[in-house]
């Protein structure tokens, strides 16, 4: 497949692997966090761990939209679907995120709630147009990648006066989460970041500069193809060896320093930053999420239905929080692969294919056996 196969060449990967191995300094460890679930998935799916020398340790980050959604946020959506009789629309993986009392949007749907899976916000608009007498709520989740389409949907709804459509806004911000990880005292020791791919196409490479400047952590923005990841690792190893901490861009075919100005303007017009937002794993993070601006308040489901957010504690046995901070690995959790599996997830990291636990279970768990 043109423009894809070029980034999945086994021969080129072997060449990069050899260079990484040759350039790793003896006795030194390279602890690299791939922030994005998309990278976590690519690393697992292509078995990249097998190509890397033991000195390179990849640490999964929190960049998986459904993983960081706390239970209380899913509860809000379920309550809207069940108690307010709305048509609740959201992206596929969100349906399976565990909520309170063993519930999930998928189970609420089975119990009779009108929950619909959508592929894009355009689907939501279609549903709202087709059901002018029903309240339609879009549970909007995701990082900067999925935010512009939500902004477009809100503007379109205002333009068409789709006054029964509203958005339960759980959009979150990548740089704030990276700050939160670095700010944890006694948190995971990191030598650098593999920076987001799709998020960076929107926000550009500039927002990562504080991590290089203030925290002295190199950041290499990388595409989601396996060769992108390998190339970014080599670039990080070189920065670390040189004692440099810079923002470098491996994904130049899609990411510019400024990012997508049009998308940023749309987001800016529709959304403002919340004072604080609770993340699964990271707790309350200041200025880390978006809400609709007052002029679009009529499209804000939280206000429309008077839905206050209530925090709910995670399952005690679940290690998702520590895994999302990079402090633990999926296989360190005692319910990993036993009580918690992709078919019956207890923690959110076991839900999406981008979640660290689901990726390790689905693609990598044979390694635990080999290691045991």
């Amino acid at each position, binding site marked *: *497949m043109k423009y*894809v196969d070029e980034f*999945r*060449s*086994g021969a080129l*990967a*072997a060449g990069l*692997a050899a260079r990484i191995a040759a350039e790793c300094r003896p006795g030194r460890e390279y602890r690299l966090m791939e922030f994005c679930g998309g990278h976590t998935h690519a690393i*697992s*799916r*292509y*078995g*990249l*761990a*097998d*190509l890397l020398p033991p000195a390179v340790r990849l640490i999964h980050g929190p960049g998986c939209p459904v993983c960081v959604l706390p239970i209380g946020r899913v509860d809000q959506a379920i309550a809207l679907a069940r108690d307010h009789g709305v048509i609740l629309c959201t992206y596929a993986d969100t349906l*399976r995120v565990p909520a309170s009392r063993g519930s999930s949007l998928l189970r609420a749907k089975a119990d009779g709630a009108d929950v619909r899976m959508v*592929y894009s916000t355009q*689907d939501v608009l279609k549903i709202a147009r087709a059901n002018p007498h029903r309240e339609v709520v879009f549970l909007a989740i995701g990082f900067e990648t999925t935010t512009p389409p939500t902004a477009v949907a809100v503007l379109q709804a205002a333009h068409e006066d789709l006054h029964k459509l509203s958005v339960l806004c759980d959009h979150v911000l990548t740089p704030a989460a990276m700050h939160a990880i670095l700010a944890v005292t006694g948190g995971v020791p990191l030598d650098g970041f593999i920076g987001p791919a799709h998020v960076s196409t929107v926000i550009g490479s500039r927002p990562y500069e504080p991590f290089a400047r203030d925290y002295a952590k190199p950041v290499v923005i990388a595409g989601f193809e*396996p060769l992108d990841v390998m190339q970014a690792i080599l670039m990080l190893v070189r920065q670390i060896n040189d004692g440099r901490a810079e923002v470098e861009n491996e994904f130049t075919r899609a990411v510019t320093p400024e990012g997508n100005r049009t998308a940023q303007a749309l987001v800016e017009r529709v959304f403002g930053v919340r004072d604080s937002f609770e993340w699964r794993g990271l707790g309350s993070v200041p200025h880390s999420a978006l809400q609709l601006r007052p002029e679009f308040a009529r499209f804000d489901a939280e206000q429309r239905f008077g839905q206050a957010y209530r925090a709910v504690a995670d399952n005690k046995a679940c290690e998702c929080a520590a895994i999302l901070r990079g402090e633990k690995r999926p296989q360190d959790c005692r319910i990993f692969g036993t009580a918690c*599996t*992709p*078919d019956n997830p207890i923690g959110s990291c076991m839900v999406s*294919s981008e979640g660290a636990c689901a990726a390790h*279970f*689905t*693609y*990598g*768990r*044979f390694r635990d*056996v080999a290691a045991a």
Partner: protein
Amino acid sequence: MSRPHGRPLDIRHGRVDMSHGAGGRAMAQLIEELFAATLDNPLLRQGNDGALLPAPGERLVMATDSHVVSPLFFAGGDIGSLAVHGTVNDVAMMGAHPRWLSAAFVLEEGFALADLQRIVVSMAGAAREAGVAVVTGDTKVVERGKGDGVFITTTGVGVMRAGLTLSGDAARPGDAILLSGAIGNHGMAIMSQRQGLEFDAPIVSDTAALHGLVAALLDSGAAVRVLRDPTRGGVATTLNEIASQSQVGMLLEEGAIPVDAAVEAACELLGLDPLYVANEGKLLAVCAAEDAARALAALRAHPLGLRAARIGTVRADAHGFVQMTTRMGGRRVVDWLSGEQLPRIC
């Protein structure tokens, strides 16, 4: 012949109504003028509650399959041909020669008779091509909104090849894993036409009766131990079933698995893995390693197996992992399908 029903069935403009399932004249007319006329054969013509079959061979194989595919008509086939192929293939994967089918139709009130005719004609064509006879059937009608046009359940009976036993628990470490051709075409053909997901893709379902290909493979004399058609859940799920039944592991070679470029591109677009996408005209065979070349040659000599390939090897593995060496040179698990990839694919 006299016309007990008065005017003939208005197939062009007519619709299924509740009387077509009520057991009275209208039902008899539908059966006579549409089903019996289209699927005609001596055993069906017996016209009794069941078909009296001539006793062939020693061992028979019976298999059944319900078909609820949506949309009913798709590139490369429709629910009628699929209902024949699906069950014929289940019988064929046992190593039997399929001979007879039953067909039970659940029709929704309001379904256009012209569409029903198209489906039954397609079914008759698929049966004729496969050399099987639809010998008995049933028709029920459910109220509008309680079905989705038509559901078809077929049961097939076939005659087992003498001296042969195939079973999912027979794979042994060292055996070769063969695949008869490119994967994912049926699932992606359906998906590209699915409401809300339509995209233009030159992808045609591979739906086909596989017993001819199976006969060619078995005639080669290769020691075949397991045959399966990787339908729902795709190649990945079927191999996990075999690994689990046989208590073995497997190691696949990603680069050896044939996938059409259009299927690969469509999967990429939707974030799907072709290994989990349904097929309706492919088989997986596990055979003795020393016979792999012979078996592969036999598959490739048949029109339905031109792109057959050896995709992996059975290994001893207490954990029953199906693993794969990726094109990148790394290794990963090829797990069971988790959850539902796409409902109503067949």
